[in-house]
């Protein structure tokens, strides 16, 4: 059964590409996406009882490839199908050729395959497929594409996959299997020093996929390439990066949580760097992209803390982040179309200009800054629930940074709009899509506890008193953030200080990107090899 989750999107993609016109492709796309969402929901229901396992072919032992869906994988599949459904609705009336739908379906198939497979080499193949498809989608508009940045994206991704393949070689040598579950049981019996090298090599590639600290600039740059549509940027930030996080979770499971302290530090540093970089930007898409980096840092932190609540919170935050970041990106795409600019200083008066976009964007912003009753608050509450001491303060500080970033972003609601803002009736689908996502933010916030129980099949209890405390902390940091932004940062950030300008235009060259890969590899290797697991 699980095989068809992957094969059918791919098959339909090629089928549409060969046989149909753009119009039928559109209708088929919506219908199929809806059906797939229902099916993924059914899979989630199945997974609540027991793990669903499909062997590809009827072979003994671990000779064949296995697809396994536990509740985590099923949750990711459901997330993918929901987001692609929303994207198809959003892109319904855009002027898309068959090629667009072809690539969209292929990407969906590859991502679902990535979430379901438990075979090391299959992961390599699927990651390459999804990378190439994303690269084409990023340069979809022929006239406005930025070929140099796209090329850098593609080449960096190929290089990190070579690291992965190399690490896989050592892993295969040591364990003799390519199946994750089987490998995990063998790994427990091995000498930890032997594992250092494969671990470092594989983690380097995964860290680059989720754009952790030394490797973080390529992703935002790619997100904002002029040729990339907002829907593609949304996939990139909302889902493609999640595939990196998913692999991180899986490989930490396989290696038994090696080096989680290191990743705690790296996650925190990434979050701080992401916030700092986001604050200096003026391009609205770049602000969103760097805030993605910050949230990924937060998620990695939560995943590395290790205790139950933080882990669940981080998992829930992955889902939440996908939802509100996609809503924000799609909203940003409409705002850019409306104002014909991407500079946040020139966008004013959105609230009066377009009420609907504003409502959806505000809901998503409430989600991301963790306002009470929105989904971000639940996941951030859980993230902070089982940490104490300095780390708790660090998380609060990161949230303060996020609040600052989105105060800057929210400045566009106020002021007077320019005279004519053209909206068209074809926007109904788009508005519906982002409003739906906004409502989902609110819904997941109100029923957070139940949602976690349903999706991850895990019991968490949101303590009312603790939640109130978090809400008070949130209100306090909102106040502090507002004062800080209004009276200190607002002027300084727009001044032409050299350091700010440099941070704003931060863009590593190709050589530096490779060097940062090397640095990351060396750090992980030394930490794991010398100080042990």
């Amino acid at each position, binding site marked *: 059964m699980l095989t068809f989750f992957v094969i059918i999107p791919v098959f339909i993609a090629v089928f549409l590409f*060969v046989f149909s016109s753009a119009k039928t492709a559109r209708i088929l796309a919506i219908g199929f996406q809806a059906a797939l969402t229902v099916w993924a929901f059914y899979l989630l229901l199945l997974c609540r009882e027991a793990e669903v396992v499909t062997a590809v072919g009827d072979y003994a032992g671990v*000779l064949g490839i296995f697809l396994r869906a536990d509740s985590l994988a099923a949750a990711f599949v459901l997330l993918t199908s929901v987001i692609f459904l929303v994207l198809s609705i959003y892109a319904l009336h855009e002027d898309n050729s068959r090629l667009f739908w072809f690539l969209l379906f292929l990407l969906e198939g590859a991502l679902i395959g990535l979430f379901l497979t438990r075979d090391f080499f299959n992961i390599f193949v699927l990651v390459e497929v999804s990378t190439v498809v994303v690269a084409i989608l990023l340069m979809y508009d022929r006239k406005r594409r930025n070929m140099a940045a796209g090329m850098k994206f593609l080449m960096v991704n190929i290089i990190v996959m070579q690291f992965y393949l190399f690490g896989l070689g050592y892993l295969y*040598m*040591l*364990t003799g299997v390519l199946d994750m579950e089987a490998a995990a049981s063998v790994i427990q019996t*091995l000498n930890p020093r032997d594992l250092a*090298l494969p671990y470092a090599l594989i983690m380097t590639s995964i860290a680059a996929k989720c754009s952790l600290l030394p490797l973080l600039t390529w992703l935002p740059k790619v997100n904002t390439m002029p040729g990339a549509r907002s829907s593609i940027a949304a996939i990139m930030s909302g889902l493609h990066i999640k595939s990196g996080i998913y692999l991180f979770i899986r490989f930490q499971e396989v290696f038994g949580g090696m080096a989680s302290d290191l990743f705690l530090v790296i996650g925190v540093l990434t979050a701080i760097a992401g916030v700092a970089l986001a604050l200096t930007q003026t391009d609205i898409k770049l602000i969103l992209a760097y805030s993605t980096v910050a949230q990924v840092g937060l998620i990695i932190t939560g995943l590395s803390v290790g205790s139950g609540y933080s882990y669940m919170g981080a998992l829930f935050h992955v889902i939440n982040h996908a939802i509100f970041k996609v809503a924000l990106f799609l909203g940003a795409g409409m705002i850019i179309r409306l104002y014909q600019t991407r500079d946040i200083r020139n966008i004013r008066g959105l609230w009066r200009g377009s009420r609907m976009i504003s409502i959806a964007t505000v809901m998503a912003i409430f989600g991301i800054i963790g306002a009470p009753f929105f989904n971000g608050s639940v996941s951030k509450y859980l993230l902070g629930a089982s940490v104490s001491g300095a780390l708790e303060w660090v998380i609060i500080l990161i949230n303060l940074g996020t609040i600052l970033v989105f105060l800057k972003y929210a400045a566009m609601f106020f002021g007077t709009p320019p005279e004519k803002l053209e909206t068209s009736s074809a926007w109904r689908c788009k508005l519906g899509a982002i409003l739906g996502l906004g409502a989902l933010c609110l819904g997941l916030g109100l029923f957070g506890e139940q949602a976690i129980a349903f999706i991850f099949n895990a019991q968490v209890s949101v303590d009312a008193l603790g939640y109130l405390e978090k809400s008070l902390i949130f209100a306090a940091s909102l106040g502090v953030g507002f004062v800080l932004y209004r009276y200190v940062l607002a002027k300084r950030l727009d001044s032409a200080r050299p350091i700010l300008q440099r941070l704003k235009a931060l863009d590593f060259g190709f050589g530096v990107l490779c060097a940062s890969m090397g640095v990351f*590899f060396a750090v992980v290797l030394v930490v794991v090899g010398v100080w042990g697991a």
Partner: protein
Amino acid sequence: MLLFLLILWILSAVLVLLEQRPYRIVIYFGIFSLITSVAYLFLGSPDVAMAEAGISAFTTIFFLVCMERYYAARRKVGAQADSETRANTVPVRKRFVRILPALLFSAGLLGLFIWFIPTGEISTHLRDQYLALFISDVGGENAATAIYLGYRLYDTLFEALILVIAVVAVSHMSWFDGTAMTGSGRRRAEIGHSSMAVFTMRIICPIILLFGAYLFFTVHLTAGGGFQGGLAVASFFICRYLIYDIYDIPIKKVIKMEELVFIGITIVAVLAIFLGVVEFAQIPPVIYLNTMNVLIGMKVACSFFILFYRYIAIERAS
């Protein structure tokens, strides 16, 4: 012997590294690929060696076309003062100092890597099982083929898919917005003016095609298979280009055919392995293996022909 080959291998790689002139890089890279292919053969993997040999022919052609355009572009702007021309004027010692940090860094990484290389013994769990079971599980006499057409067919499906994507991507990323060149874009191969060459290639062409077909159909007996056979058939088109040109081939139909063949591969794979029809209906494995191989071979041949066509006809046009 392997040691000698590997030393040559590293030396040719260092040649690539040290060379500054792009055309020569391509030539040295060709040497490097040849040595690699022979080394694969010595390591007991004739399948991979054949694939590498076929692939490197295409890679070299892609690079050569690219270089030709590169020099054309350079000539257009004249000797522009970017680092491509500047590099040759900087004295050697200064250049060395400039690359020294990178050299030390990579050497350090290499040292670190070697220090941490796992010392554990290789686990032969899967190897033993594959070698013992593949004849009864999948059939055929070549274990590597049995793995990629049987045990790991799921991977092979995506491998075929990535070729479809590559064809789409190449036509989408290209400077030229279209699939076929008409009119002024045509050019004949230079070799076409030499009657001796044309005569000889006419003899060679059928042999290559025959070899490709041989690789398709003997997969259950010896090394070779869909990929290698497809590459051989695709290289038949290179030879054909040298004699007749390739502009008379309707490229759009080839693209359509490629996608149809991919659909065919998916259907056969789903039916045969995922749903287990081969086992259920007692179909002899030879029939399944040959069907799959012919399909994959057609797929690979079409893909590489389209890539070749694009490079020769469109990327190369001025």
